[in-house]
């Protein structure tokens, strides 16, 4: 076998310390957050037309299987990344309005919990030039991932995903600018001030240069601030009002453009069907 699984496992163990939360000395908790799951999703009407984590996971499994068979046909035996646990079957809007999940804030502060899933990108660094070319393609050859993607989109009906992207961005921006949401944001600021934090806007709190969201270091102060942020988003009604306002806006868009949304559903279902077929046939 080209790649030794034991060697990979040993390397994974070696990189584990960098995958744990490093709290500042004054913080008492040091539990590694490796098995983090959250049911906090903030569902929105557009979610059904987007790819949720489980759907993406299914498509990715099929894609890897197809790519691995393609590589084997080229005489290359390579374990592809991507064997992750099955994720939730619901779309994740938990950071759409900034931090909103008190459990996540209590553990990760302003950091996204996903930062602690998996290791470091060392697999890609170990690819040989031949493997890289076969997998990703070269000048005259599109490569195995491209071949897998083509197979998975075979016969799928057209859908205007660009339009959905624009609508999703618009409903977020417009709902953010309504009088009710602005009023709630002002109440959030008052609440934060009473809690000892002088932020005029939630973006100022999460964007405070005290936190380094590029690193995996979470300080106790960041956690305390993020927790206060979430509590104030709830007590001020900011989270509920913004979410309710955007939900209503998305429902109106869906009602006005039913045919477009039906085509988006048909496109996704066809791709998922292709993925399921690939997983069945290639097993």
């Amino acid at each position, binding site marked *: 076998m080209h790649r030794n699984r034991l060697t990979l496992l040993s390397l994974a163990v070696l990189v584990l310390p960098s995958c744990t939360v490093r709290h500042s000395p004054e913080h008492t908790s040091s539990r590694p957050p490796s098995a983090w799951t959250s049911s906090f999703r903030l569902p929105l009407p557009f979610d059904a037309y987007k790819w949720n984590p489980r759907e993406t996971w299914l498509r990715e499994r099929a894609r890897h299987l197809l790519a691995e068979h393609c590589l084997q046909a080229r005489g290359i035996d390579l374990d592809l990344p991507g064997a992750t646990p099955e994720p939730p079957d619901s779309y994740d809007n938990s950071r759409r309005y900034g931090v909103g999940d008190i459990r996540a804030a209590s553990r990760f502060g302003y950091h996204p919990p996903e930062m602690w899933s998996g290791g470091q990108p*060392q697999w*890609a660094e170990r690819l040989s030039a031949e493997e890289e070319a076969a997998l990703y393609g070269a000048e005259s050859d599109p490569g195995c991932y491209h071949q897998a993607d083509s197979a998975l989109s075979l016969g799928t009906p057209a859908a205007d*995903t660009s339009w959905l992207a624009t609508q999703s961005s618009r409903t*977020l921006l417009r709902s953010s600018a309504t009088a009710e949401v602005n009023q709630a944001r002002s109440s959030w600021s008052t609440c934060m001030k009473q809690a000892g934090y002088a932020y005029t806007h939630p*973006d100022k709190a999460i964007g*405070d240069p005290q936190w*380094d969201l590029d690193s995996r270091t979470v300080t106790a102060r960041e956690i305390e601030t993020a927790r206060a942020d979430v509590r104030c988003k709830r007590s001020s009604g900011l989270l509920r009002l913004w979410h309710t306002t955007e939900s209503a806006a998305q429902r109106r868009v869906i009602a006005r453009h039913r045919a477009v949304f039906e085509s988006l559903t048909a496109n996704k279902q066809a791709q998922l069907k292709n993925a399921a077929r690939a997983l069945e046939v290639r097993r």
Partner: protein
Amino acid sequence: MKPLKKTALATAALLAATVLVPGFIPAAQAEASDIRAGSCNAPNFCLFENANFNQGGVNHWRDITHEDDDFMGNHWRDNNGYLTNVDMNDETSSVKNRTGCSVRLYEHANYQGDFTGFDNGAGDGSLSDNRIGNDRASSALFFNCA
């Protein structure tokens, strides 16, 4: 104070070296020439300023290998690998993922707002047709790394 972005630090070091040592030519830049539009090597997440991986457009690109919570202040590189003065925030039009990780591009800094995920090996020549949209990406999150 928040640590300066790695890009900003690298730029500052480069500028300092250029100013302090007459005739100094940074090795990476001296060796880099004519970087082909659309090129992307493992283990990079490659961002392009224009659609179709810059082919047929100005070759402004940037490779990253880890999270970036705010693209603001990061500049594109040009055809020779030199840093330009063009900020890459809200300016990405196409991407390639060769990291071995899944990468999410978020609409806003600090991993907020709408996002689109790119699995390993994914290439998208036109971000306009997914949730992040064209010229809207402001932060990148790496996860599920192999």
